[in-house]
């Protein structure tokens, strides 16, 4: 096949050794690349019951056939590890030139296992591997780390780095590269547990040829032109921050730790207001024609801060914590970037602590330092404490689920997570498809692996449609997301296709030379989601893990009930061909072409 190298590099940090291993064509034919490839390698290499912060947990970086082809937005690197937040699959995607650098090394993926004897920078320079001392970088933020590494090794290197949060094992630490983040599920904590401060990659090899160069160029041009059309106007012109005021108006803006769906001060931190009063510039990711990355600057009397801000950071550090000062929200987002922490989990865990204070639950540290809803200074102070694992921050660095389990006093009731991953900015009480998507998602509460909210924010389904219709829509949404994540193409492009699966299959065929139909590509999406599900089952997933926080299932104000969610989940299992307990029958694995690919014996032989 074309457009891939057919091999990955397995690096053992404990021994300082590396070896090239083959990747067969059927892996790409069945799982595409990107998140599909990273999930597959994680499944193969992660032992049963592995400690997410132990040396045995693999940290996988994967590219895709589309990287380096000129297809717009297709320069994303997929990262996967067993998540220290959920104990299940942690997969993340980050736009970056690192993806292109990796592909130019002559490998399609890196699998990093073991633990370095001391803090280390791993340099991958084509086929040469070097483990360099990294202890002098401790305490630096990700951007400063990348700058120092490139100054040492050369500007041809692209760098993925962790901040102080990753060094100190904050369970939702992120990995930063080119200012973009592999943000969710705590892969930065996994990197830190390996004493890996930075990964530096330089590739000088020729990119593998595509099967139909002219066809790919033509299709890439057409897609780039469509990426500038009305389907992406919102992102180009205003950015995702535009969601906030509208969501509040609809009553689906998580506010004060999901105690309300409308924020009375939404206008003050709305995307429209930020655009008029704080926006400075906009940028695009690597290889992107859309340019959705909007930057904002503080406009108060303090030291000026400029930061990239998305809706998810805005809601999590704003309405979720009851904070209405836009300058404070911008400073909070910048702090999360500086420490290298996922803003959603940071804001949500602080909101849990704020509700603890509101309800009189005793927390560690001095009461005058506890954060309270609406307290901007308290928010900023607590983010710093988390990043440094200091005082109350040491508890909150564990994430809302563990913090509540440690604290007790009934606080588990307002820890707003699914499987240990905090909810993003969509209140699922009024969003039925999204509620189901959150509950069954393999990585916990996630709007990106599902995107089912699109069904809720449309006229696709009657609100009273039967459970099976919602389940089909949610499954379809997951499968499309899995394909996009595995092609490593931005989800903002999805409305630029008139028939996504047919056009994407045609593009895949032109790039790789492998025959692919629309139905086969959709099936590949289901296959990828099934690999993730199987990983979770092996690591201890049970039916009880597919649920939502009880607060969201009270049925108040016409919202979802526990019985209704259960019906939706059962319908979803039926659509997937799983049994009533959500287990995947052997015949379903055979139908999907996974039984042989994931045979345990094959995995263990290679790992040994």
């Amino acid at each position, binding site marked *: 096949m074309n457009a891939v190298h057919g091999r990955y590099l397995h690096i053992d940090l404990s021994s300082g050794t590396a070896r090239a291993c083959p990747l067969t064509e059927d892996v790409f034919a069945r799982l595409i690349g990107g998140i599909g490839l990273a999930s597959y390698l994680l499944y193969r290499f992660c032992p049963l019951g592995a400690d997410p912060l132990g040396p045995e947990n693999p940290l996988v970086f994967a590219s895709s056939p589309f990287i380096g082809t000129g297809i717009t937005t297709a320069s*994303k690197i997929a990262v996967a590890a067993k998540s220290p937040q959920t104990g299940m699959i942690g997969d*993340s*995607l*980050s*736009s970056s030139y690192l993806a292109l650098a990796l592909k130019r090394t002559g490998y399609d993926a890196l699998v990093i296992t073991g633990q370095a004897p001391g803090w280390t920078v791993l340099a991958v320079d084509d086929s040469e591997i070097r483990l360099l001392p990294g202890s002098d970088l401790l305490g630096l933020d990700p951007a400063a780390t990348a700058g120092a590494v490139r100054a040492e090794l050369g500007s041809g290197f692209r760098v993925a780095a962790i901040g102080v949060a990753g060094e100190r094992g904050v369970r939702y630490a992120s990995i930063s590269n080119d200012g*973009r*983040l*592999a*943000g*969710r599920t705590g892969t930065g904590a996994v990197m830190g547990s390996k004493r890996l401060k930075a990964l530096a990659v330089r590739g000088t090899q020729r990119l593998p040829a595509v099967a139909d160069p002219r066809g790919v160029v033509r299709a890439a041009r057409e897609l780039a032109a469509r990426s500038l*059309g*009305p*389907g*992406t*106007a*919102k*992102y180009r*012109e*205003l950015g*995702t921050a*535009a*969601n906030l*005021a*509208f969501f509040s*108006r*609809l009553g689906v803006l998580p506010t004060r730790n999901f105690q309300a769906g409308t924020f009375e001060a939404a206008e003050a931190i709305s*995307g*429209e207001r930020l*655009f*008029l009063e704080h926006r400075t510039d906009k940028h695009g990711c690597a290889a992107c024609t859309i340019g*959705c990355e909007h930057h904002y600057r503080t406009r108060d009397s303090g030291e000026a801060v400029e930061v990239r801000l*998305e809706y*998810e950071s805005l809601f999590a550090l704003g309405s979720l914590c009851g904070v209405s000062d836009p300058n404070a929200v911008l400073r909070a987002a910048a702090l999360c970037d500086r420490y290298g922490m996922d803003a959603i989990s940071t804001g949500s865990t602080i909101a849990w602590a704020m509700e603890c204070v509101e309800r009189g639950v005793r927390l560690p540290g001095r009461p005058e330092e506890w954060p309270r809803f609406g307290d901007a200074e308290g928010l900023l102070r607590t983010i710093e404490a988390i990043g440094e694992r200091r005082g109350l921050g040491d508890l909150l660095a564990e994430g809302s689920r563990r913090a509540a389990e440690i604290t007790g006093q009934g606080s588990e009731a307002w820890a707003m997570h699914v499987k240990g991953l905090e909810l993003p900015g969509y209140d699922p009480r009024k969003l039925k498809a999204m509620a189901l998507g959150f509950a069954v998602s393999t990585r916990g509460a996630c*709007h*990106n692996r599902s*995107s089912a*909210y*699109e069904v809720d*924010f*449309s*006229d696709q389904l009657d*609100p009273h449609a039967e459970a099976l219709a919602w389940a089909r829509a949610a499954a379809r949404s997951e499968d499309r997301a899995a394909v996009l994540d595995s092609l490593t193409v*931005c*989800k*903002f492009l*999805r*409305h630029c296709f008139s028939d996504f699966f047919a056009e994407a299959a045609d593009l895949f065929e032109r790039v790789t030379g492998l025959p692919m139909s629309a139905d086969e590509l959709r099936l590949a999406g289901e296959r990828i989601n099934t690999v993730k599900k199987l990983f979770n089952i092996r690591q201890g997933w049970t039916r009880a893990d597919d649920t939502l926080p009880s607060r969201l299932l009270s049925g108040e104000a016409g919202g979802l009930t526990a019985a209704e969610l259960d019906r939706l989940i059962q319908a979803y299992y039926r659509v997937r061909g799983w049994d009533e307990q959500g287990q995947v029958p052997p015949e379903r694995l055979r139908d999907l072409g996974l039984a042989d690919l994931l045979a345990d014996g094959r995995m263990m032989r290679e790992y040994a």
Partner: protein
Amino acid sequence: MSTGTATVRVELFGIPQLLTGRRQVEVPGRTLREVAGALAQEFPALAGSVVDPATGWINGGYLFVVDGRFTRDPSCPVGPESSVLLVSAQAGGAS
């Protein structure tokens, strides 16, 4: 449009709000198509980027929300008591 057509209050979010400088406007119309046409007529900044002048209907990146229901049905009836929102279609990002 006949005289005496009822006025509809439309709340604007995102780009339509920035283009008009208004969070809420009132335009005549009995259906969403008439509302879209009236919006483009009264606020020329919306013509092209939000409302297609050729069809008189909103572009693909936009939706109406009428009484809590999302719709792109131009024949959807509206009246003075209707809650009408003009919003951008939703799509999440990476990470």
